[in-house]
Structure formats: C-alpha cells, structure tokens
C-alpha cells in the first residue's frame, strides 16, 4: 500500500472503530425507540450523520411529530454547509464535479477535521476519503449489528446505553468550547433547551436553543486561530 494512504488509514481506523460502537448503540436504541430495523439501516446509509440520527430517533421515541424529528436532525446537520465549503476549497481544481457529488456524502465531523488539518491539498484529499470511507463502513456495520443483535444485549437503559449517548455528544462538545464565546453559547444553549422542555413538544427545545448562539456574539473569541484549528477535532 502507498505509505501516504497508510498514514491516514492509521489515523482513521480507531475513529472508525469508535464510530462503529456508537453505530451499534444507535441501532439498538432505534429499535427500542420503535423505529423498525430496516428503517434504521436505510437511515444510516442515506443520512450518515450520527448526531442527527440520534436526535431523530429521540424525537420519535418521545412521541414527537415527523416534522419535529426532521427539523431537529437538519438543524444539527447545518454545520455541514460550512464544513463542505471548506473541504471543497481544499480539494482545489483537481477534483471534478462528479467526484464532489460523491464526496459530499462523506462530509462528517471526522473527515472534515482530518482533511482540514492537512496543509497540502493532495494530502487533504487522501485524508478525507480515507476517514470518510472508514467511518462510513464502521457506522453502517455497527448499525446493522445494533438493530439485529442489540436486543440480545438486553435493556439499553439497564446497560446505561442511554447515558452513553449524551456522553458521546459531550465528548464531541468538549474540544469545541475552549473560547469564552463558545463556552458562553454552550451554557446558554443548555439552559435554554432545559427551560423549554416542559413547554414545547419533544425535539423543539433543541431547535429553540439555537437562539443561544446570539449570546456568543456578546463574548470575545479569545483564542488564537492556530489553537482553534487544532481544537477542531
């Protein structure tokens, strides 16, 4: 194997493994939330965005409407727009539109972080494809195992799996709240969401909490740019 690919593969494989474990918990949680196995598997293939899929299943599990589930998922995926633009620029002219149409489906936090960390456009392309494909395989394989064998694991709650999910989101959040602006926005978002829970249907609190981003404008972005790129997993 080309050593350039080997380096990127070495970085991507542990991420792919972690994602596959999350995929297993997604599959089993989806089924326990009342989402049929085939729907969950197709969802992982077509949506391929863990956070939004958990949000979607969470809304369904709490008896929320289809629209609330979709809107919660899409708001969570809104970050892929700037991620996609940044990755597209790193690709440069060497990447045709037809390749980009396929690449777009692999735009996720992990592939974006590893690709944008590369200085060279060629390396960025290799990092993007390697990470994207490894995570795609891991996520979908994990989902399939989860929907069919998840039941054999027993009650996800007794195993604490329902707590593992917000913990995984917390782990994604932690490296992103190094600046005062980000921390203030995070705290405001959490408080606003919790305050909304008793008053609006499931799924809506998270959407309403996006207004907390305005709180961030009042705080300085007191972190050097270089550190921020590194902080972006």
């Amino acid at each position, binding site marked *: 194997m080309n050593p350039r690919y080997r380096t990127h593969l070495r970085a991507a494989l542990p991420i792919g493994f972690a994602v596959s474990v*999350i995929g297993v918990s997604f599959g089993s949680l989806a089924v326990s939330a009342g989402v049929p196995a085939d*729907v969950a598997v197709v*969802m992982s293939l*077509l*949506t391929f965005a863990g956070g939004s899929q958990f949000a*979607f299943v*969470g809304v369904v599990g709490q008896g929320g409407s*289809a629209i609330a*589930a*979709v809107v919660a*998922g*899409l708001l969570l*995926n809104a*970050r892929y*727009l*700037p*991620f*996609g*633009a*940044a*990755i*597209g*620029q*790193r690709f*440069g*002219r060497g990447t045709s*539109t037809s390749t*980009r149409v396929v*690449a777009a*489906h692999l*735009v996720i936090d992990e592939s*974006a972080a590893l690709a*944008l960390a590369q200085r060279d456009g060629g390396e960025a392309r290799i990092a993007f494809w390697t990470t994207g494909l490894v995570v795609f395989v891991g996520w979908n394989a994990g989902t399939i195992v989860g929907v069919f064998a998840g039941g054999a694991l027993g009650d996800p709650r*007794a195993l*604490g799996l329902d*707590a593992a999910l*917000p*913990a*995984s989101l*917390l*782990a994604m959040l*932690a490296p*992103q*709240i190094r600046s005062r602006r*980000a921390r203030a*926005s*995070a705290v405001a*978002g959490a408080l606003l*969401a919790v305050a909304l*829970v008793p008053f609006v249907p499931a799924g809506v*609190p*998270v959407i309403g*909490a*996006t207004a*907390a*981003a305005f709180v*961030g404008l009042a705080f300085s972005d007191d972190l050097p*740019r270089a550190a921020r*790129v590194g902080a*972006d997993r």
Partner: protein
Amino acid sequence: MSGAALWAAVVALAIGTYLLRSLGVVVTAGRSREAEETAGEVDGASAAAPGRVATLVSLLPVVLLAALVAVQTVAGEGGRLVVDARVLAMGAAAVALAFRAPFLVVMLAAAVVAAIVRACVPGT
C-alpha cells in the same frame, strides 16, 4: 408515528442532509488556489462566510450539542424534567474528559456509572 410518515421523515432528513453537505462541496469546484490556501488557515465556518452570520453559524454546532446533552440528561417522559442516573453519568463523563480520556472511555464511564446507579437504586 405511522410507518409511512416515518419513511417520509427518514427520506426528508436524508435529502436535506445531502443538500447541506453538497452545496458547499460542489459550489467550490473551480475555486482558485489562493482560496485553497486561505481555507487551510481559517476554520470551516469563517472560510465560507466571514462576519456575524459566520460567527452564528460557527456557534451552531456548539449550541446544538450543548442543548442535546442537557435535554438528553434531564428530559423525561411527557416533557417532565427528571434528575436520575443520567446526571451522575454525565458527571462521570465530564471527569473522564477532564483527564483527557479517549472518546470510548468517556462513553464507557457514563454507561457504567448509569448502569451501576440503576442497579443499586431502582427507578432511576
């Protein structure tokens, strides 16, 4: 939710997500090398659109993640706020993160603490 509504929602989420992803990736085809080099120095959001809007967009993941963590930690059936094993589990996850534990360890810490609390105190 009926089966048909569920499938429609899944397809809508998939299409919407793909559009969000592809817009940036495809529109930037044919950008100059100069743009390519700047993109490496600034983060994703500000590379796409500088200014206040970009700041808001760049804060969106942070706000959404924090809101999701909070809601998934204290929201119970029918819009009630409950303090149960999940709160202690999040504490364990936060401690693991403070010690720079890897992603999997953070998840495991939360799951193990929640499972232990639930085994010891029924109904949490």
